[in-house]
């Protein structure tokens, strides 16, 4: 160990495929630099495993700069680890101490089956989006920029909701595995703008019923989702979805 590098004990969930029961496996890793990201530490562990002739640990990742939402991982019992407003790829190893035991698990939800090790299938989110998380645009001439006035306040709120990267930390950290923060952010980002408002009532109904159908749990307003969201999406979006759903349901033809 040299200049502040750490030795870590890791407990990682290993599971061969969807059918496999899976189990926690202990690993130890020496010489982890505090400047590494959590994913780089996982790469280092994988390199070690490959050199030893073992199967490497499968995990999702893509941009490694906190914008794609692919990296998942429950780290020491918290979605994306202990830091707030942080994805796993943005988490630095300096958040840990030499000799720490780090527990790494996949997101757990009925709607997100584990495919292998730490990789889960999050296509349930795609299905929710496909159910109505879009705006229908008819063809024709491109409209003039700024032809539709939008209040600064609504533009800001829509932008805040649109910051969602669909990582599903909200589902993972919710004790009920509820997807309401994600769904409400996707509903809000469109419903707050005049272009999306047109289909707002239909959208909230179809997205909520898709969410229910996929087996996500029910929100109990504990706000763990908001607390673990790397983009700081507010549960005020959930309240907006709640009131929009209700008015939409009583008006539905």
């Amino acid at each position: 160990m040299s200049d502040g590098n750490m030795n870590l004990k890791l407990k990682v969930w290993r599971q061969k495929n969807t059918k496999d029961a899976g189990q926690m496996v202990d690993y130890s890793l020496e010489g982890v630099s505090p400047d590494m990201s959590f994913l780089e530490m996982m790469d280092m562990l994988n390199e070690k495993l490959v050199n030893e002739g073992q199967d490497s640990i499968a995990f999702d990742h893509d941009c490694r700069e906190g914008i794609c939402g692919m990296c998942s991982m429950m780290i020491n019992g918290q979605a994306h680890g202990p830091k707030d407003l942080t994805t796993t790829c943005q988490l630095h190893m300096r958040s840990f101490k030499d000799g720490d035991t780090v527990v790494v698990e996949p997101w757990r939800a009925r709607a997100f089956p584990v495919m292998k090790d730490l990789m889960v299938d999050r296509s349930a989110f795609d299905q929710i989006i496909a159910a109505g998380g879009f705006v229908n645009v008819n063809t024709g001439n491109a409209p003039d920029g700024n032809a539709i006035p939008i209040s600064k306040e609504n533009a800001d709120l829509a932008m805040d909701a649109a910051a969602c990267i669909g990582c599903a930390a909200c589902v993972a950290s919710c004790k009920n595995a509820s997807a309401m923060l994600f769904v409400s952010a996707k509903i809000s980002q469109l419903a707050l703008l005049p272009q999306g408002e047109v289909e707002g009532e239909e959208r909230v109904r179809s997205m909520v019923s898709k969410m229910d159908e996929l087996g996500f749990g029910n929100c109990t307003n504990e706000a763990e989702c908001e607390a673990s969201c790397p983009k700081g999406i507010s549960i005020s979006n959930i309240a907006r979805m709640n009131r929009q759903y209700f008015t939409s349901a009583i008006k539905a033809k």
Partner: protein
Amino acid sequence: MIARFTRLMSASVVKKQIMGLTGLLLCGFLVGHLAGNLLIFVGAEYFNAYGHALITNPLIYVAEAGLGVLFIAHLGMAVRLIMENHKARPVKYYLKQPTGRGSTFASSTMPYTGTLTLIFLVLHILQFKFGPVYTIVHGGVEMRDLYKLVVEFYQSEVAVLWYVVCMISIGVHLTHGFWSAFQSLGFHHPSYTPLLRKISVGFAVVIAGGFASLPIYCYFQGGM
């Protein structure tokens, strides 16, 4: 048409709203019940007369039925939601820790404080509504001496302690339940949500403290 409506109304969002609405209405009952019971402090005569007026009013059956429906709806929906939520995560985490920025002690113990309240409620109704009948004559009218009943009942330290514990539990339940009901019903705004959370705590303290003061007062009343 009807089928579509019931399907729309059985969505997760509406189930939360039913939880919230029934909870708020039950909060209304707590306020009324506490206000009436505070007459114990005014005097036996007033308390008994209030009880007599309630029992002899034919509308009491309607009110009791309404309360029963509210309570069963709140409880039934809670059981259903808990079961669904349990199913939503079939494989549990090996290690799960709260962030410390979201859930609270109250929010994570709602099913337990709720269950304790249910047990309390059943015993409470058996102890008083269906308890021993003493009668007394106030101003020429014969009525149940409920004052004697409660004072006598709360001579036992165990009974007082159980009551106080149950009130603390209801108070904890309310600190989350009250503001949470508004959130489920769609009320959330940066200007009033923080206030609502404070009111939630204040309401819980008033209700729990108000009720808990009654058996303690009765306990010291008996010795005289």
